[in-house]
């Protein structure tokens, strides 16, 4: 341990005041008592008695001061020792950098990351340069210059990750976080503490999890694709089947294959959302056209329902992630169909409402009982669970939809009346484009 930064006082303000008061009280008592003792003595002895009294006063006060200082110091040392051993015992590496960019403290865990302990006593820049040299090009921290200045001026700096090899040559990922060391009445930052946490294992698990999700998607969706595809092929070879029953069976196979694919998407989306791994990249998209295409591809969902799209009169542009929004729209339309089992219309409207684009999906089905409307966007929450007319489901669709819409900076909600049907709506940021750009919209996607 180099340099000792100032430690907090061992005695509290109250303790100090009490000590001073006790000392004053003792002084007064001494004077009064001394006076009472000296006065009855014969006059020729009095000067000597006064001298002795004064010498005694000096001796007693010196001794008292010494004892007080000794006890205070001992308490201070105990406190310092306690802090030191806590710091040294920490699993995270801790390095304190003073306002001149010099390392002023470092704990034992920090030693694990440096080849040479001397680096923990010199300029922070040299320490960082050495850490960088130990590994591949990481997203390198610059915690001597700008980060130090930011922290000292009261700002914050996000944690950074550094890839390196530790003292034993093990490849590791260190997460560095930066915070101020404050002191004094105004709590001004006077140094910076850098905490280095070994997140190698965490990163490994994250990678494993991502790989698993990607593999799960592939493994689950491939059979769904094969099932649906072969059903479509049968239908193609014998349109309508050899008889109406066979034709219906083909349709069911196709529909259910499609559904299986979407359920898989849904479950994977839940995992991704919960792990914070859902990527949403909103771009300016022409919604009126996209929505028309999506609705057309959803018409096959139910022979009993008519999807009625009421497009806006003008092109509607919004900031949205087309793939994610398609997922949400398919979800809401699927719900509208599922909760109006007798069939009928599902009406889809799109329009602009000030700064927002608003999309509404309306059905005239069973609606949601008032006492079951709360929390329907929560995970696994199913408004109709346990009711006679419950059409089943996983209870994840609305949860995923809300999360996706919110990540696109939109809102989602509904109005519903039991027996009358429901209207689910969502909004997205309106993103009008200059007229000359309207027809120029390149997105990657399959034509046809």
């Amino acid at each position, binding site marked *: 341990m180099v340099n000792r930064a100032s430690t907090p006082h061992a005695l509290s303000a109250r303790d100090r005041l009490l000590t001073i008061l006790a000392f004053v009280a003792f002084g007064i008592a001494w004077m009064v008592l001394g006076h009472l003792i000296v006065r009855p003595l014969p006059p020729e002895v009095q000067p000597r008695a006064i001298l002795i009294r004064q010498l005694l006063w000096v001796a007693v006060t010196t001794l008292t001061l010494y004892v007080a200082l000794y006890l205070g110091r001992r308490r201070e040392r105990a406190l310092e020792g306690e802090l030191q051993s806590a710091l040294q015992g920490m699993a995270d590496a801790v390095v304190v950098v003073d306002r001149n960019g010099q390392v002023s403290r470092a704990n034992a865990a920090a030693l694990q990351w440096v080849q040479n302990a001397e680096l923990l006593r010199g300029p922070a820049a040299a320490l960082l340069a050495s850490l960088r040299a130990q590994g591949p090009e990481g997203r390198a921290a610059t915690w001597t210059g700008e980060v130090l200045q930011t922290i000292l001026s009261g700002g914050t700096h996000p944690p950074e990750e550094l890839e390196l090899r530790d003292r034993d040559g093990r490849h590791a990922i260190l997460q560095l976080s930066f915070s101020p060391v404050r002191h004094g009445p105004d709590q001004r930052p006077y140094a910076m503490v850098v905490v280095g946490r070994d997140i190698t294992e965490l990163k490994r698990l994250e990678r494993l999890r991502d790989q698993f999700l990607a593999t799960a998607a592939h493994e689950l969706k491939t059979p769904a*694709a*094969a099932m649906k595809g072969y059903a*479509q092929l049968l239908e193609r070879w014998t349109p309508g089947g050899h008889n109406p029953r066979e034709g219906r069976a083909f349709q069911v196979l196709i529909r259910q*294959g499609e559904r299986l694919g979407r359920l898989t998407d849904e479950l994977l989306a839940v995992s991704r959302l919960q792990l914070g791994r859902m990527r949403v990249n909103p771009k300016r998209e022409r919604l009126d056209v996209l929505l028309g295409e999506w609705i057309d591809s959803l018409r096959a969902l139910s022979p009993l329902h008519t999807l009625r799209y009421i497009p806006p009169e003008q092109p509607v542009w919004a900031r949205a992630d087309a793939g994610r929004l398609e997922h949400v729209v398919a979800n809401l339309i699927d719900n509208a169909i599922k909760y109006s089992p007798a069939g009928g219309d599902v009406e889809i409207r799109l329009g602009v409402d000030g700064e927002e684009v608003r999309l509404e999906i309306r059905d005239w089905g069973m609606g949601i009982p008032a006492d079951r409307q709360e929390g329907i966007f929560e995970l696994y929450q199913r408004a109709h669970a346990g009711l006679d007319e419950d059409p089943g489901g996983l209870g994840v669709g609305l949860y995923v939809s809300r999360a996706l819409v919110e990540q696109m900076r939109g809102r989602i909600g509904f109005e519903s009346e039991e027996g009358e049907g429901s209207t689910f709506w969502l909004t997205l940021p309106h993103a009008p484009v200059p007229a000359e750009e309207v027809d120029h919209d390149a997105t990657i996607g399959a034509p*046809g």
Partner: protein
Amino acid sequence: MTRPSVLLVEDDDDLRELEAQVIEDAGWRVWRAREGGEALELLERHGTPGVILLDMRMPGMDGWAFSRALHRRFGNTIPLVVVSAAEDAGRWAAEVDADAVISKPFDLDHMLGTLEAFAPLEQPVAP
């Protein structure tokens, strides 16, 4: 008259056969490959197809490695369509500079429409 051909790269046997059947029924010739290495061999042997349908996650040479080799050898001359079940299919397609993406489970008509856009059948042959 030569029919345009489609190089189909897919590791799942059932899916590959399904896609091949549908594409052949519609009139294209199909070259089947289980992974990128086989696909490259076919390209060496038969020349350039009208379009390539590429699965991304495959044992052996995956879609990324295949498209790198493809672009090194042929540049961007052969239309490349990514067929994937992955959530990131769109991003992957962009990574390998694909011309289009089809998500699984796909619709057969959609797949044929995509093929028609890149390798049109001049004279459709009845199945």
